[in-house]
């Protein structure tokens, strides 16, 4: 039986138009700069495009508990059910359980295209569990893309095995290329039967990461690099990291903000290391973007996340529920192929429909404007302000509309009394929208309207159900027509 699976037949892929037509919810500097051969591989990967993630889902299976290093942003004790961040997990699975879970999810959520092993430790520090899972999945569920993320320490020893499976993406977390910086991030590594500390440890880790990156690229396996932005530790240094990894052939760089709260029990959290402000993250991403394809919509999900990015349906697929499910995977693959084809058709149609956002024909002297958007998916402005769990941030400028990133509207912990809610949800949301001059939503209440205006953010509910980029561009044109953008940046700062 031959199944037509997206991403394998190159003839029917939207290569030439692709995301460069501008409707990917994104971005010149995301997928559209990639060579066609790479874009073919990643266009239905929810983690790689703001647009695809509204249509395609991913899941992680937590089969890899052991780790071979310690990072100052990680606490190996943590498994809070209300937490949503990397390294956190509720239920550890054996490879057999993991394979069963993946097939159950793929059958129930046909939009699921990608399976990742991301922890909760380091997947390559658990080679038997990780590779047994991959081996079984490439045999039993060949329509699922496999990916793995690693700290890189054991990567050079794993490249041969990785190349054997259906794995075309590896993510390496590289926070530095300078051991002096590394010593401030990694207190120790386990190496050659010893616990190695300090600069010596950082140097070994960096050497292994770089060697692994080069080996993967030489094998034609796509490499994405993740970096955690830690203000005062590696913020300046990450531009250098971006240059180095690009030169060596990484195809995408994902700079993520440090998550550090004392209640997480991490070194950075307890020692009061601050997380970066959204503007700092954006400035660094923009600075790196000249050299490198940057990723801007990472939701930093858990090591056992299931579903679309930003949502987690893991509770529907606990092992006791999966044991009770009967799965006919051959039938599921047929259904999945149909669903994927329908999604592709919809994405293609959308791409053709909104090419206008790319070259709007606006005089070049107008300054760019940031706008927040409340959306529940589908590329539309379709969410009530008060229901938004996050805001997408777009920049409108004379060169068009581009996706900048997302801002969490509620904090990582919600509703748990031990986590202490210190400010109201509305205040949190206004802070999340810092730097935006407009917020677009389907509806908004009277009270938040007033408070947003006071904070210098104009609420706008007039573009409900419209495509995001068209609406952002329309509002930008309205601002120009109203004369709001006539003042220069310095005049605005003085005002």
């Amino acid at each position: 039986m031959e199944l037509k699976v997206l991403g394998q037949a190159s003839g029917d892929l939207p290569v030439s138009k692709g995301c460069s037509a501008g409707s990917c919810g994104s971005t010149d500097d995301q997928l559209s700069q990639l060579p066609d051969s790479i874009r073919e591989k990643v266009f239905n990967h929810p983690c790689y495009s703001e647009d695809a993630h509204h249509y395609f889902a991913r899941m992680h299976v937590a089969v890899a508990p052991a780790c071979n290093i310690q990072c100052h942003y990680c606490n190996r004790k943590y498994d809070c059910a209300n937490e949503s961040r990397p390294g956190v997990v509720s239920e550890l699975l054996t490879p057999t359980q993991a394979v069963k879970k993946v097939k159950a999810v793929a059958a129930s959520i046909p939009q699921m295209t990608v399976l990742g092993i991301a922890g909760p430790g380091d997947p390559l520090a658990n080679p038997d569990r990780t590779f047994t899972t991959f081996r079984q999945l490439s045999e039993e569920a060949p329509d699922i893309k496999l990916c793995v993320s690693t700290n890189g320490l054991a990567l050079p020893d794993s490249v041969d095995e990785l190349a054997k499976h259906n794995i075309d993406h590896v993510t390496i977390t590289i926070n530095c290329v300078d051991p002096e910086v590394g010593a401030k991030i990694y207190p120790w590594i386990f190496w050659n039967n010893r616990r190695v500390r300090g600069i010596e440890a950082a140097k070994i880790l960096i050497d292994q990461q770089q060697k692994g990156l080069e080996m993967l690229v030489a094998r034609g396996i796509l490499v994405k690099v993740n970096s955690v932005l830690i203000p005062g530790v590696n913020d300046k240094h990450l531009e250098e990291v971006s240059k180095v990894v690009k030169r060596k052939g990484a195809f995408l760089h994902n700079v993520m903000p440090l998550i550090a709260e004392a209640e997480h029990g991490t070194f950075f959290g307890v020692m009061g290391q601050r997380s970066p402000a959204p503007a700092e993250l954006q400035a660094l991403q923009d600075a790196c973007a000249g050299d490198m394809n940057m990723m801007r919509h990472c939701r930093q999900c858990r090591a056992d996340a299931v579903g679309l990015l930003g949502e987690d349906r893991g509770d529907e697929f606990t092992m006791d529920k999966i044991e009770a499910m009967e799965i006919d995977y051959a039938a599921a693959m047929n259904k999945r192929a149909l669903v994927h084809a329908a999604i592709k058709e919809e994405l293609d149609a959308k791409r053709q429909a909104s090419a206008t956002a790319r070259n709007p024909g606006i005089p070049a002297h107008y300054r760019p404007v940031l706008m927040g958007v409340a959306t529940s998916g589908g590329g539309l402005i379709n969410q009530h302000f008060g229901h938004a769990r996050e805001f997408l941030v777009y920049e409108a400028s004379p060169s068009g509309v581009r996706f900048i990133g997302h801002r969490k509207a509620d904090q990582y912990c919600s509703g748990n009394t031990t986590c202490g809610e210190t400010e109201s949800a509305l205040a949190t949301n206004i802070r999340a929208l810092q730097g935006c001059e407009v917020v677009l939503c389907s509806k908004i209440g009277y009270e938040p309207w007033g408070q947003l205006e006071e904070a210098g953010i104009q609420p706008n509910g007039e573009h409900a159900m419209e495509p995001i980029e068209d609406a952002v561009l329309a509002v930008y044109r309205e601002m120009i027509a109203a004369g709001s953008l006539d003042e220069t940046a310095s005049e605005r700062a003085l005002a």
Partner: protein
Amino acid sequence: MAVEIIEGCVNCWACEPLCPNQAIFASAPHFLVDENKCTECAGDFDDPQCATICPIEGVIIDDLGIPFNPPGSLTGIPPERMAEAMAEIQAR
């Protein structure tokens, strides 16, 4: 001469494959060490391998009950700072 794994172990499996004597085994609520098999890695390695990769302070102890990884030795967080931070969180 044998190490012991005590309460606080997070069952991360890191130690289990490293033991040259296969003395470590999964159990509930946490991993355990067979004291008849454990040699503290004498003759095989300079340091007991389990305690060398273990990420959790205080959970692997020697015959005298002394932890191989005392508080602060792995995270780098001074114990008094950790106590302060926990007190601040409790007081919220």
